[in-house]
């Protein structure tokens, strides 16, 4: 696939706009998945996919071919998602229910059916994870998604965020700390 990508990139650079199509077709789903993990929102993820390919097309001149097109476009998508999270942060957001006002999973867990309990617990955990993710700063969230969900190395994350390795590590540490603080109590009581 990499050789096909490289050939398509060369063609686009030689002036063939249509050659960009296979690149879009091959990588859209991957970018959508990343964007969804970053934003947790389908419409935002769609927006990021479009923006990513538009930027990639316009920036094809800066693509030096030392990484694969896939890696390069993944980085662009990460930054598009980061930008969107930044923008969203400065815009008023719908109120997120305060977990303290709701019954915690521990209160909801007792049930007659163990499977239902597990499902409920899992759904509750997912909701808490989503809330915890939303409490992260855009940079922390990006670093966490890239490291925890996508298994990217600290060096790759630093390169994506255009920061030093130490700063990328700190973003991961802060994100993990916040996630632990948000989730550990619920997990302890669910034991």
């Amino acid at each position: 696939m990499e050789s096909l990508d490289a050939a398509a990139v060369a063609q686009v650079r030689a002036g063939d706009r249509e050659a960009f199509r296979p690149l879009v077709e091959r990588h859209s789903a991957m970018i959508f998945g990343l964007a969804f993990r970053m934003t947790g929102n389908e419409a935002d993820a769609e927006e990021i996919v479009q923006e990513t390919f538009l930027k990639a097309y316009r920036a094809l001149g800066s693509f030096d071919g030392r990484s694969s097109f896939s890696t390069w476009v993944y980085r662009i998508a990460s930054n598009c998602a980061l930008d969107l999270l930044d923008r969203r942060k400065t815009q008023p957001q719908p109120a997120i229910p305060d977990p303290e006002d709701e019954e915690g999973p521990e209160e909801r867990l007792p049930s007659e059916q163990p499977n239902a309990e597990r499902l409920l617990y899992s759904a509750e955990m997912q909701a808490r994870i989503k809330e915890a993710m939303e409490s992260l700063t855009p940079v922390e969230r990006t670093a966490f998604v890239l490291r925890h969900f996508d298994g990217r190395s600290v060096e790759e994350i630093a390169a994506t965020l255009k920061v030093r390795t130490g700063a990328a590590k700190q973003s991961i540490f802060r994100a993990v700390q916040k996630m632990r603080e948000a989730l550990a109590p619920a997990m302890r009581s669910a034991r």
Partner: protein
Amino acid sequence: MKHLTQDDLVLHYYGETGRSAAHHLAECSQCRAEFQELSRVLAAIRAPEAPPRSTEYGAQVWHNLRPHLPEKAAASSWWLMPRRWAAMATVAALIVAAFLAGRYAERVRPQNPTVAAKTASPEGVLLVALGDHLDRSEMLLVEIAHAESPKDLDVTVERRHADDLLAANRLYRQTAMRVGDTATVAVLDDLERVLLQLAHAPDDPAALEQLQRQIEAKGLLFKVRVVQLNVKDEVKDRLPGVNPSQSRPTI
């Protein structure tokens, strides 16, 4: 005993620490308990499941995107202008001709390495990609040329491999044709015929022999290696930090 910090534990969870952390955890029950607690929480954090996309999703994205794309990507600037390509093609053609005539052409290198470093720009991308394509093609041709019978080959894998190379080869040939690089077009054209045959080759000795004859008659392996060598040298000049391939072709 110096305990591991929370940061050390996080790095260890993500496999970003060396053996010393693992060694400490094996010996220290306090840190081990901390690590287990951390692992339990992190292991529970799973990626949200993205809503499924149809197989047509990529095409839909393209459909929405296309009207917003400028006619030419910003990248299609000076380094791929026909005149530069034509110059490169001329150099390539001259080197090929020199080799075919049994003479050695002394390659002209940039006089100032700093200039070469400065030109290590995206223009090298095409060369790197083409070099990689030629490497893969060469490997396949060698396998075919040296096989004594179809039993020596995994024909299904070779067909698939040929099919993949075929698609890329078409794109390179079209690009080379567009910029008037007739020497490269000729080699890629010959290569394409062989790849096409291989992609649809039946699993019998006669078909293999026919392919081998064709490779030999056209001197295809030799031609591919000459272009490959030239491309690699160009890559070395233009992208000093890039290793054009693991192996250097031998002519």
